[in-house]
């Protein structure tokens, strides 16, 4: 039996400032993980990744594991969790900037 497909979001970095971004269901890039489209079908994931890789202002789009949460998709792996926050040694990045976007 093939392994069950784990849900994914599509994430990348913004071309201009490098900030972490997520692909939403309506083809926008959001700074907020919870706004991402949670993709639960493997074929759809591959198609959406191709869409993402064709957009102009996103760099290095890839599929990252995610799970359904109360307010939208949540990261599964710690690397992706760090990417939703920023570095742990300073209050820089999303953890302080989220309020402004």
């Amino acid at each position, binding site marked *: 039996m093939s392994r069950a497909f784990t849900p994914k979001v599509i994430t990348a*970095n913004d*071309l*201009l*400032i*490098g*900030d*972490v971004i997520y692909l939403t269901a309506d083809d926008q890039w959001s700074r907020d993980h919870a706004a991402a489209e949670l993709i639960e079908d493997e074929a759809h994931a591959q198609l959406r990744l191709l869409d993402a890789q064709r957009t*102009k202002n996103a*760099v*290095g789009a890839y599929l990252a594991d995610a799970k359904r949460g109360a307010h939208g998709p949540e990261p*599964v*792996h*710690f*690397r992706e969790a*760090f*990417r939703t926050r*920023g*570095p*742990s*040694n*300073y209050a*820089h*990045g*999303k953890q302080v900037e989220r309020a402004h976007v």
Partner: protein
Amino acid sequence: MYNYTDFDADFVRTRTAQFAAQVARRIDGSLTEDEFRPLRLMNGVYLQLHAYMLRVAIPYGSINPQQMRTLAQIADTYDKGYGHFTTRQNIQFNWPKLVDIPAILSDLADVGMHAIQTSGNTIRNVTADHFAGAAADEIEDPRPIAELLRQWSTDHPEFQFLPRKFKIAITGSSTDRAVTRAHDIGLRMVRNDAGEPGFEVIVGGGLGRTPLVGTTVRDFLPKADLLPYVEAVLSVYNMLGRRDNKYKARIKITLHETGKEELSRLIEERFDELRPLFGGNDQALLDQITAAFSTPELRQADTSAYAAFYKADPLFRSWADTNLAAHKHPDYRIVTISLKAHGATPGDATSAQMRLIADLAERFGHSEIRISHEQNVILPHVHLSDLPALHAALRGSGLETANVGLISDIIACPGMDYCALATARSIPVAQQIATRFDALKLEHDIGPLKIKISGCINACGHHHVGHIGILGLDRAGVENYQITLGGDGSETAVIGERAGPGFAYDEIVPAIERIIAAYLEQRQSPAETFLQAYRRLGLAPFKAALYPDEGKRDAA
């Protein structure tokens, strides 16, 4: 201080203008990321986890006050008010916006700095002993040679597309403060029987996924033969180095696969061809360069204030005991300014700290500043009588920590707080170890100890050559830290031994504490350093301390 030639200045300006156009074409969509990536990497621009990163070279670690102030201004204008000094004598800015990078490069070019060859499969920034030109144990200042190598390697057409990155380190002392044995080429100055200076040439050292101590291919290379010899090594590597497999592409693998004898033979053969072609031009250039690296005019002054302060002020005494090194002039000292305040990020300096360092270098240090691969800042020439005032000026700035060479003077790579390749965090581990041992008030009692931490197998934090090395890994989606013991990056270089299974993020500091407790218990006297004790005792007692339950299980 060496000033770059007009040729260099023009080259950097042209490169900056080209890059500005490339950035514009990337932003308007004419260049794809695949097309742009190699161009940005050629100019030191990486894309990390949260933002772009710009890596700026500090050739052989030498920087002047004006350049330091420019770095501070860049940090304030384009970044978040700080910079990160790295183990390769570079500075990294963690938050530049892509559109601003051409302006940053232009500001850098104004003071003769750049980001060229800080990335890519080229000859990287040549690193040198950070005490160069000042150390009491030095045969000669290695920086003229480092500068000669920089000029020769910059944009060298034959060596822009090597099989892999290529790193050269050089030291002018027999004491190796530049980790020469862990570089693609390590050059260590020695004297021959006639007393003439030359180099021991070490090839094929490197850390990363295949850590190896370099192999000596020449015990004594006359100084005048250096450039053709280095070119011969590069030339042989360029031909033989594997381009089919990135993990087998470094010269250490070439050496391993070709064998030392055959590789040496090929190098010597190529050297015989190349040497006549240089025709002495390299030596004429070296003479010019050497003149620019002369020692500043040292002062004659009364030194009694130093002794008085040393006796009277315990904070000054503690700082003097750890942060000063012997200078070739008996009335001078080499000052290491620690960028390792307990709990701070190793190697980070705020713009205010950079400006203070620039000011102090002008007031007390003949305007010379060095950056060490151990992520600290050096004022190489300070007169004894100025040390109390220097220390007083550092106090309250976060730069006065008396911990150089001690357990909290940790090398740590950016790890998963910044680096896209990381498998675990390294900075918070360094912060916690430093804070913990500061709270225990043990670090001066523990004495000389080098902890080095990397956030993945690439080993940018040199963990293999740490007396205690820590490697952060991802084990089934959880951060896990592997410990190596007994590593050494000096002239007696050794790759550390793996202690056993790794530790979880919240177990790593207690694990380090157990190692230290075992050392304190077992050392013969406080004079026996951790490394000496390890060499005497071997892994067993430390392993027992790290994994106490295993001992119990065996006994049962």
